[in-house]
């Protein structure tokens, strides 16, 4: 049997397949369809200190082999998460990771500190790359100083594995990754969505309520693979790769580019059982190619 275990700092994954924040709810939404404990890790919805209503409808547009979304971090706040969601997920035998968002280093830190106290949450993913909120969000992710300021504030109060999720809407993503690394990030994940727009030409207005949204899905895969490879060669901490993964072959491509683990996002909408297919497909591929461990292929390109 191929060894699928991977480790991201203190985080032990039974396999490298995770689900991307905002695309898999709290996992519970998929439990009829997927054995949750067989997923490496489930990254839950973007969570903020205070509750957020998110943006108005329409929040979604289909595009060529992809989609734009501007959900805007709708969530009931970290307190609600701790009190109402956490009890439902804490005994499911996989890693639940909270995707933490905010509008200032302080409230990122406040939210992270709250999650630090939850025994069964071994890691957080700091979302400094959400293109769909005005306050904060991507603003921190597009400069080295902004990224550093959030990571620094959170690192002071957060003691478990700290993953920082990078925005692809930048000139030099490797610089941002290095800035996060120097402030003590344990890993980086990339990419979040590419900022895009679609226009309803009949109504002469943007299709999304807040004009722009984030592009995800197979359309962005080549950009994501390039960025993962760039960051892999720039930092020493592990890289988590995502962006358009639909198949086991896509996942292997990301791992060869330098990802120690991968996240599946939009593909869950097309095939809610895709995580299991990717996991099985990776196992088969690795076996067929005589690999003993999935770790052998990380960063070979």
């Amino acid at each position, binding site marked *: 049997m191929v060894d699928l275990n991977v480790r991201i700092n203190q985080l032990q994954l039974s396999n490298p397949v995770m689900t991307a924040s905002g695309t898999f709810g709290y996992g519970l*939404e998929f439990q009829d369809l997927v054995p949750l404990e067989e997923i490496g890790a489930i990254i839950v919805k973007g969570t903020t200190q205070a509750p957020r209503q998110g943006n108005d409808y*329409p929040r979604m547009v289909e595009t060529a082999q992809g*989609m734009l979304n501007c959900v805007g971090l709708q969530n009931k706040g970290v307190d609600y998460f701790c009190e109402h969601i956490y009890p439902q997920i804490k005994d499911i035998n996989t890693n639940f990771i909270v995707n933490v968002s905010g509008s200032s280093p302080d409230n990122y830190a406040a939210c992270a500190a709250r999650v630090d106290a939850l025994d069964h949450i071994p890691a957080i993913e700091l979302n400094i790359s959400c293109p769909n909120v005005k306050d904060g969000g991507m603003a921190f992710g597009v400069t080295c100083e902004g990224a550093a300021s959030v990571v620094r504030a959170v690192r002071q109060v957060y003691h478990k594995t700290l993953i920082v999720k990078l925005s692809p809407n930048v000139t030099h993503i490797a610089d941002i990754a290095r800035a996060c690394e120097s402030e003590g990030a344990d890993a980086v994940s990339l990419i979040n969505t590419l900022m895009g727009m679609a226009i309803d030409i009949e109504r002469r207005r943007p299709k999304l309520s807040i004009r722009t949204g984030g592009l995800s899905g*197979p359309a962005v895969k080549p950009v994501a693979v390039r960025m993962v490879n760039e960051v892999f060669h720039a930092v020493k901490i592990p890289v988590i790769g995502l962006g358009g993964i639909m198949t086991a072959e896509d996942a292997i491509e990301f791992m060869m580019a330098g990802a120690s683990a991968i996240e599946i996002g939009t593909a869950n909408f097309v095939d*809610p*059982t895709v995580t299991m297919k990717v996991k099985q497909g990776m196992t088969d591929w690795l076996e067929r190619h005589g690999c003993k461990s999935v770790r052998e292929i990380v960063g070979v390109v």
Partner: protein
Amino acid sequence: MKKYCLDLRVSAVERLSVKHVLLKLTQEAPLPAMQPGQFVEVRVDHSPSTFLRRPISIHYVDVAHNELWLLVATIGDGTRQLGRLQPGDEVSCLLPLGNGFSMPPKASNRVLLVGGGVGIAPLLYQGEALRKAGHNPVFLLGGRTASDLLELDLYKEVGEVYVTTEDGSLGEKGFVTNHSVLEGGQFDLIQTCGPKPMMLSVARYANEHAIECEASLENMMACGLGACLCCVEKTDEGNLCVCKEGPVFNIKRLLW
């Protein structure tokens, strides 16, 4: 209700009009339980411009033949490709999704089912459920022209059917909300599905006459599972996912 992702086989394809097709889907094993008003997220193969699944209402479940019926209006590439399916083809269906229509609390209630366009789809199955539960469903179905009004015999087997067309080619001329049955009729519950402007005026009528009313919304969807939060509608409880908390809502909850 437990959700499934099934590869169903097309057992029949009936072209009901130039832009409507009736798909009958089946599998070896018995189909899972489904409720009227719930829907299916259908995967569309062979369409380069269709990336996400397409939500389609459960039109009817023929338990005797183990068949799920979908009534599809072919308006874009995705639905057109569904219209090109052939018997024997496989279709990936995620189902049953959302919450269906409710059953009236009291016995022998008179329920008005108002459908417009392809919004008539979920009403057939709901009509049958009502009838079986001892209620008296009345259909009020509207279309632009006679050829939009499909399968009227099937609806007539289940309840009284009243019809409007905008061009007057069948039934009363005008919109459903102008139909004379609304003047006399004493209804205990209205359930409606169709274009938003129609549902809004049905809701206005229901409010004016203090009749309970449920509307089935058709917001654009990605996951269909309540996971992506793309399909939200503003309600008295904030933004709710139409795919999970709906698609059927009591109109009292809607801020539309």
